[in-house]
């Protein structure tokens, strides 16, 4: 459904050049939960930004269902791919209420008539487990987990087909993280979405993704079904990553390569 073909991207700051992505090609199929795993500098966020049209690649193409995606894209294409960011603290405009934040995509893409907006916002909040009265709250009165839920509701508002999630739970406490991840999986089922899940946390990937690509310094180290990559990792970098996961039980220790 989303095809990434031979994408390369270089960043030059003063005299330093960093090859953020080097000839990366992927195929993400409908209803996948596709994980992009890597440490800092791996290029995973750059790749997400290129798919979203925030950055322009130096070479290569991105395709959505046979249509090529460029950085400048029309509203119809924009609504299909939405984004949940890493940092819940800065993802909501501090001067806008929750209602204002969630209703923005509804207005831009004319999802519903103006007099139906309030009702739709209430419904979206209920999908993410928040009561209607949250509509009038400002972000500074919300916890990290609640902010992230609002961000998810906002992403769902434009009725997208693909959701790109960039470390959506890394900044949250572990128990909250668990609840938000469960929420994300429920929503994926309920709305038949495709997820591109970017993270450095392999134990999360193990439990939610059906396909995973491991990236290292802009190149693909390993790519395949989650079970295969974890049970039979071929690349030594992948093995190092799996071994480095902090585990809390002896059974898990035994699984590591």
């Amino acid at each position: 459904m989303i095809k990434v073909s031979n994408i390369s991207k270089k960043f030059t700051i003063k005299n330093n050049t960093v090859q953020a992505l080097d000839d990366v090609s992927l195929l993400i199929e409908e209803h996948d939960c596709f994980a992009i795993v890597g440490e800092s500098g791996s290029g995973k966020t750059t790749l997400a930004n290129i798919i979203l049209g925030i950055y322009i690649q130096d070479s290569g193409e991105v395709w959505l269902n046979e249509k090529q995606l460029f950085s400048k894209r029309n509203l119809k294409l924009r609504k299909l791919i939405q984004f949940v960011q890493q940092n819940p603290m800065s993802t909501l405009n501090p001067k806008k209420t929750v209602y204002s934040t969630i209703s923005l995509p509804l207005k831009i893409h004319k999802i519903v008539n103006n007099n139906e907006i309030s009702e739709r916002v209430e419904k979206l909040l209920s999908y993410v487990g928040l009561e209607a009265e949250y509509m009038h709250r400002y972000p500074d009165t919300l916890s990290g987990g609640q902010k992230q839920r609002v961000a998810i509701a906002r992403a769902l508002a434009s009725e997208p087909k693909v959701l790109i999630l960039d470390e959506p739970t890394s900044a949250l406490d572990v128990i909250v993280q668990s609840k938000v991840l469960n929420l994300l999986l429920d929503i994926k089922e309920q709305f038949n979405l495709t997820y591109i899940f970017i993270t450095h946390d392999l134990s999360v990937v193990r439990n939610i993704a059906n396909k995973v690509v491991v990236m290292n310094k802009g190149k693909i180290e390993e790519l395949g079904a989650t079970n295969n990559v974890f049970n039979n990792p071929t690349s030594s970098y992948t093995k190092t990553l799996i071994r480095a996961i902090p585990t809390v039980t002896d059974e898990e220790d035994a699984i590591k390569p």
Partner: protein
Amino acid sequence: MSMSNKLLKIENLELSFKMYEGVFNVLKKINLELSKGEKVALVGESGSGKSVTTKLILGLLNQKNVTKKGKILFNDRNILHFSQNEFKKIRGKNISIIFQDPIAALNPVFKIKDQFYEVNLNNKKMSKKDSFIRACNALKKVSITDPERILESYPFQLSGGLAQRVVITMAMINKPELLLADEPSTALDVTIQNQALDLMNDLTKETNTAVLLITHNMGVVRKFAEKVYVIYRGVIVEEGTKTQIFKNPGHPYTKALLKSIPKLSGKGLPQFDEDAPDYALIEKYTHSQQL
């Protein structure tokens, strides 16, 4: 008066902040102890009060709206209400601290060698040349092959992992009795995290330095700590040895913490009931002493 063999003993420590919205009780009578050379972890999520505990040990919370009660006994002296002058004698020498983001902890406009100089002066007066040599030796000991280049660099020129190793070395150079480590590996990549923790382990073992590790990451606790305190909203809800906590967690909150971590076996995400109890109201679980 009997001398306890505890290096650090926190007794019934209470902390509250007075804000416009009301009074916030951040620490509610917590008790904690560390022996010489012991590695103890204080585990909790955000809002638990774990970070303010380290600030209190170092005497960094002195605003007008802060109320502190109880005792922090360091080598049997109550340091909770020490003056800043008295704290200056302890900080950097007897008690050292490592923070989460190593690059942010270092002053961006000074070279590494100058930052070492400041730390060395806590020990005794010495010339910049002697400080440089001392720093060089310390860095060589931790397998940094080009210490001279590192010392002449600015913090932004180092990678996160390297910077953390420099910070750890700096913190340990005066052989403190107690090392406070506030989420020391959280900002690092997973593969580098273990290196930083191993380094901390090696250095502190050599000098018999006790470590109080503050974290929310149970995996790190399991790798590093001997004894564990679990804190929730200003209350210690469980205390025990590493084996007791991980094999037989007693308190519902500890169980929830362990359950919430996705497992490598890949059997799916942990499921929670929507309504969690108020963990702070459930009585503290103390493991029976095993000999």
